[in-house]
């Protein structure tokens, strides 16, 4: 019965979509049915899979770098109170910055292609993961560190066996946010100065006024993002103990 609310939500969204389609006409909004049909025909073409592959590899690299970098830097800043206090406002401001204005600079630094897409994805995803990790460490009960010292643990043992498991839940919440933002960064990156990827495909479709293709790509990305989010939520629930 847990499925029922989700099914109802899906039906409501489809109904809203269909009524919007009827209201504004097919030149502005393709119907759900036409979108699904276009997605099916797109997925039957080898060329589409080349674009999906390009986006997937850029996204995978971005997410990996954002996670590793965010957790490592977050641990450093979270454990060093002074560094954390200095870095926090800087990070907050960087995070608030409309990053798309910096994309020309990213292109100049990393060149056209995979490098700048990954860099732009990391720029979006790293900071939330870093901030979640840092704050989780700052709010760690001090008794955990005291226990670690009283049990005579080596620093790496403390990090691996106490700090990481203690903050795992919050780090995962950060990664969930980072997942969505990294995807956003990669797609924006693909929309400009790129010859491959779903972002490029969507941009081309928009230029050609091919609304069904544009919506089909949006649908595909939505399915991917929702699935990823659900999986991370499930892992998170698994980490929380009874």
């Amino acid at each position, binding site marked *: 019965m847990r499925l029922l609310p989700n099914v109802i939500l899906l039906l409501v969204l489809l109904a809203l979509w269909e009524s919007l389609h009827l209201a504004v006409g097919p030149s502005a909004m393709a119907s759900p049915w036409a979108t699904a049909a276009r997605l099916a025909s797109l997925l039957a073409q080898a060329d589409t899979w080349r674009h999906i592959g390009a986006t997937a590899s850029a996204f995978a690299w971005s997410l990996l770098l954002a996670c590793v970098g965010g957790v490592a830097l977050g641990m450093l800043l979270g454990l060093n109170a002074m560094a954390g206090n200095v870095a926090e406002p800087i990070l907050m401001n960087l995070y608030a910055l409309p990053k798309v204005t910096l994309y020309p600079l990213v292109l100049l630094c990393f060149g056209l292609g995979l490098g700048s897409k990954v860099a732009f994805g990391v720029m979006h995803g790293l900071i939330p993961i870093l901030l979640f990790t840092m704050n989780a460490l700052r709010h760690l*009960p001090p*008794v*955990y560190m005291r226990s670690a010292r009283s*049990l005579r643990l080596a620093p790496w043992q403390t990090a691996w066996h106490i700090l990481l498991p203690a903050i795992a839940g919050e780090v995962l919440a950060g990664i969930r946010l980072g997942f969505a933002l990294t995807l956003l960064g990669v797609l924006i990156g693909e929309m400009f100065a790129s010859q491959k990827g779903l972002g490029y495909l969507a941009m081309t479709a928009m230029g050609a006024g091919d609304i069904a293709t544009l919506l089909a790509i949006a649908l595909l990305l939505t399915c991917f993002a929702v699935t990823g989010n659900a999986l991370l939520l499930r892992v998170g629930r698994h980490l929380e103990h009874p």
Partner: protein
Amino acid sequence: MSRALPLSDLVRMQAARRPEPVHVELAQVTRRFTHPATGEPFQALGPIDLALVKGEFFSIVGPSGCGKSTLLDLLSGLGKPSSGRVLFEGKPVNGVPEGVGVVFQENAAFPWLCVRDNIAFGLRRAGVEAAEVQRRVDYALGFMGLRDFAKAYPAQLSGGMRQRVCIARTLVTQPRLILLDEPFGALDQQTRLLMGDELLKLWRETGATVLLITHALDEAAMLSGRVGVMSTRPGLFIDFVDTGWPADRDSRVVSTPRFGEITARLWEKLRVETLKIMGGAH
């Protein structure tokens, strides 16, 4: 002092204790801190001289903020003295020495590990062989009455049970000196009395030297062989009370007249100190 207890018991206890070697020693120990708001340095503790005899059960009572916990930090090597010497088994304490176990007031059980893994935690990190870990953890589970909860997670346990887990986690490392920082502070009165019995059992079983920090006079009076009373800041010992309890005592001593006498004497000293803090020295 010896009114409530047969003289023979008292003599036997004193005789048994006197030839024992000094296990822990503090000599002219002080600890100064810098006030976080004003930046002024102040003396939190000392100078303190204290010697704990091997195998004794010593408690410290004192008003809040008197530096009891600071003293425990110095003994455990979690903190460094500003001056003076701290010796454990004749060697200067620098970092937590092997053979010292600490139990904290806060819930220190790791919520991501089940009871068994919590208890085994220190042993596994120390690289103790798996079979030996299993043996010691099984023993501790039985000893602390946790056998039925081995697979439970801390969040599923009561506060008293969680504290048992923390005590068991220390117990399995086979400490020769057990330091307890208000371990029952967060528990209700009945649970505290029963946990006191557990602690006495543990003390008798291991033969370890026990130092208990507490704000509960009854706890100190019931459990200890000797109680040290500390003054307000800077913390100094203003009285030592020998309780004269036999080694096989338990929580039932609270119904003896002697328990009342000891508690009264502790309170008499502590009342003055507490009033100083409250700003109304009468």
